Every structure is written in C-alpha cells, then in structure tokens.
C-alpha cells in the first residue's frame, strides 16, 4: 500500500549495457559503514596487455600473437575466455550483458566509495594456466603477471595482491614465492591447479608448499570451470551445456583440491600453512568433510601421516562465500556454516567484476547474529591474509 506521505522520485534511466556493478554497495552503504569489509576475491581483467612488457624472447613474441587475437570483439581479451569459453560462446545469448573488462581505474573507483577496506586481487586470465600443456609457457606467464601486479598495484590503499605460480614447474614456483613473499602488498599465493597431473597434493609439488610455509604466505585455491581438460580434477568435457560444467566444475575442483592436499598429509607436514578455497560456494563443505571422515574409518592405514580426522584439518581451511548458493530460507546460511564449523573461516567474496559476481544483497539477505556477520564480512579475512583493520 502506498501511503500518501511517502516521498516519490522518478528518474528516466537507460538500459545497462554492462552488468550493474557497484550500486549494490551504495544500497547497503549505511548498514556496512563502520564495519570492516574485505572482499577476498576481486579481479582486474586487462593484465595480459601489460604483461607483454614483462616478457622476453620467444615468449614475448608469443604474447604479441595472443594479444592480436580479437576475441568477442575485444582485442587482447582474456586468455581464459579464449581457451575456456569458446566451446559455449553465445550459449547465453549475451544475457546477462557481458562483463566489462575491469581496469585499475574501475577498481580504484569502487574502493573510493569507502565501503570496502580491502580488495584482494586474484588472477583472472591466468586462472587456467594449470592446464597449459607447456610448463615453461605457464611459468613465463606467471612470472610476468606477478611482476606486473607488484609494480602496478603496490602502495594502493586497501589493495592487496595474490601472486600466481605455475604448478607444472614447482622449483620455479618456489622461486617466485621467494621473490615476492616479502612484499608488503603480497598477501597470498594462488595455485591454479585445475588440469595438472598428478593432483596437487603429490610430492612433486611440495617445494611450493614448503616455500609458502617458509614465508608464512597463505595459499589460495581459486576454482575455475575446468572446462576443457579431460583429466584432474574432473572430466567435464562430456557435458553439453555451460550450466552443467560451471555448476559442478567449481565445487568438484575445490573438493578434489582439499582431498588431495589433506590426504597427502600436507597440513601435518607444514602445520603453519593456511589454506583458502575460493569461488566454489559453500554447500559442499559438510559433504567433503564428513564423507572423508566416514571413509577414514575404513582406510586410515592408507594415510598414516594424519593425526586426526580429515574434517578436523578441513575445518581450518578458509572459504570465500562466492558463488554463494541461493538457500531457500533466510536462516539457512548460518545453519550451513555451523555444520561445517566455519564461523571463523568463512569470508565474504564478490568475484567483482565477473559475470557471476555476487551482489552484496545476496549475502545480506541471510539472517545471522551480528558477530557472525562481522566475521564473514571482514574479521576472518583480516586474520587469513594478515591484514590490520583500517577502521
């Protein structure tokens, strides 16, 4: 019912060519002000063209060729799109409007609203380098990305960086960690392991974990659709629609990463290492924790290094809320978090500016106690990334 006294405003608006991005923050600005807000999964999408200057020799030449490819009408659009999305290009009939490629200026404009205290930048185009067949090419891309990011995004208030390593070359990945871990704006190392063989817990990769542990640099696994490769972690090449691949690719990638790392005893061997899992939603967490516990009862002797149940390691993993599932009741999220014991490990993540990004209303619609909301919106992330509160 409309009361006579309610203020009415009318404005003419235009259809948005890009998905609406930042209005969601404005909408909740008042409610969020005064709280520490850390967005733990943020991307900029224009890094490839700048990386060129950080590449040498034949890889520089190859990068020039990549940048010439005119994909989706945008020269130099992401390698990620090129190798991952081409199979389903157009399957959503350009709905929603395609994501705008976010630049440094877009990121700073979002930060200037003064609502978000920290944005943690994760690679975008480089997320699938785990399944590049040529280890040297993958490693060259990672090296160029890291140096570019550290040069271009250092000393920006509230902007922090996750470097990326190519798991195919563990020794070089460890060097990469040694090179950047001491930088005050580098807060995590992202291991893009989808597509690698053997799985990421394998002894082959331990130099990466060792280096991260040595520098006390937390490790982040960031999900991807795992679209085209046909080995670890999931054969998704058989599905005909992006919807099936996308909805299962992320959580299955994440579950297999967790299983592989925990069952390899890595948390026992490197007890100070912290892990996070991003972009896979949350609902599968209880499944993998307690499913492994049930199997552990029968197969414990296969994993003699473990000193406690798998779930007791996994509950220490941090987890980003994006892609947050739409649970039917407003109280369901808090219940779910209790189920996986995640009050101190769940961290709000938007995935800005990607198409799948969560608007903050998606999280705020859930009811929970204020203490839990504060932890998820910022406090847990401060602890995971070793940041100090700005407010």
């Amino acid at each position, binding site marked *: *019912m*409309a*009361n*006579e006294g*309610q*203020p*009415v*405003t*009318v*404005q*003419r*608006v*235009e*259809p*948005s*060519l890009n*998905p*609406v991005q930042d*209005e*969601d923050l404005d*909408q909740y600005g008042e409610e969020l002000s005064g709280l520490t807000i850390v967005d733990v999964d943020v991307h900029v999408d224009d890094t490839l063209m700048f990386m060129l200057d950080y590449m040498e020799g034949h890889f520089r030449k190859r990068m020039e060729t990549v940048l010439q490819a005119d994909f989706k009408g945008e020269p130099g659009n992401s390698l990620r799109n090129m190798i991952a999305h081409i199979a389903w290009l157009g399957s*959503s*009939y350009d*709905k*929603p*409007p395609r994501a705008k490629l976010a630049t440094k200026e877009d990121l700073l404009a979002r930060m200037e609203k003064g609502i978000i205290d920290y944005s943690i930048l994760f690679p975008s185009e480089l997320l699938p380098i785990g399944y590049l067949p040529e280890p040297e090419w993958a490693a060259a891309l990672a090296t160029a990305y890291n140096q570019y990011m550290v040069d271009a995004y250092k000393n920006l208030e509230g902007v922090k960086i996750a470097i990326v390593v190519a798991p195919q070359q563990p020794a070089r990945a460890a060097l990469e960690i040694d090179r950047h871990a001491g930088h005050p704006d580098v807060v995590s190392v992202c291991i893009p392991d989808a597509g690698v063989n053997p799985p990421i817990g394998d002894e082959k990769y331990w130099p990466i974990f060792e280096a991260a542990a040595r520098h006390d640099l937390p490790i982040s696994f960031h999900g991807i659709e795992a679209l085209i490769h046909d080995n670890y972690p999931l054969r998704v090449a058989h599905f005909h629609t992006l919807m099936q691949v996308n909805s299962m690719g992320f959580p299955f990638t994440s579950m297999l990463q967790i299983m592989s790392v925990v069952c390899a005893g890595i948390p026992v061997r490197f007890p100070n290492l912290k892990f996070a899992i991003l972009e896979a939603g949350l609902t599968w967490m209880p499944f993998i924790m307690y499913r492994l516990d049930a199997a552990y009862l029968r197969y414990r002797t296969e994993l003699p290094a473990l000193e406690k149940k798998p779930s007791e390691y996994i509950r220490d993993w941090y987890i980003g809320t994006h892609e947050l599932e*739409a649970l039917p009741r407003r109280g369901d999220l808090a219940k779910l978090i209790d189920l996986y014991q995640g009050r101190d490990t769940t961290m709000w993540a938007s995935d800005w500016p990607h*198409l*799948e990004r*969560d*608007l903050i*209303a*998606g999280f705020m*619609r859930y009811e929970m106690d204020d203490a839990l909301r504060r932890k998820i919106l910022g406090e847990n992330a401060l602890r995971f990334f070793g940041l100090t509160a700005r407010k």
Partner: protein
Amino acid sequence: MSSEKPRSGSRRPRRKIPVARLSDFPAGTRMEVSVGSVQIAVFNVEGDFFALFGRCPHQSAPLSRGRLQGTVICNADTCWETEWAHEGEVLVCPGHGMEYDIRSGKAFGYDLRLRTYEVSVEDGQVFIVM
C-alpha cells in the same frame, strides 16, 4: 497495458502516482520510480506501458536498467524444438540475467512472478496505481 486486478474485498485506498507527461515518456524509454523504499520500473514498449516491481528477487539488482530482448523457448507448442521468441518483451535483469515477461512479470523458468502495477494515462499524464 499491465493490470493487476484489485483483490476482492480489498479496501485499501488506491493511490495514483504521477510518473511523467506522456510527451516526456516516449516509446522505448523507461522510468525508475521510488515510492518510499519501494522501487518500480515503468516501461513504454511501443506505446504500451508496463510497471513492475523494480528490484530483482535474486540479488536486488535494479530491473529498470534491464535490457528488453527475446529469449529461447521450448515447449509443446513449439513441438519441443528450441525457438527464439518474445522479441522485445523479455526484461533481462542487469544483475545476472534472470528474465521476466514484461507483460505479466512472470520469470522465465521460475515459479515466480514480479508484482505488476496498473498504469493509467489521463489527460496526457502517465500514472501508476498502487
């Protein structure tokens, strides 16, 4: 014209909210109307006016900013063949792309209907009726 039948027995006073002069609201344009905290998206689609609840139930993106296009359908009427249909009458949420029938507010593929509002035009003035 979009219309919502008054619920029988409803004695709520109805309020007419002026949106714009007809001359300022040509075909192909849209207005975002806020009444208190409620947002309403009003469209002029080739001379027909439609008013719908303005916030997407998914994650609250403003529907007034959605594009109008068609969509794919596949049902007994199309003999279960996929066809492009409803060109210009499907409101696409600018958040993540949920689609709504501009006429009825019905979401394609969901058992969900946005509230719609009656629009009236009197003496060259466009109103929504709440």
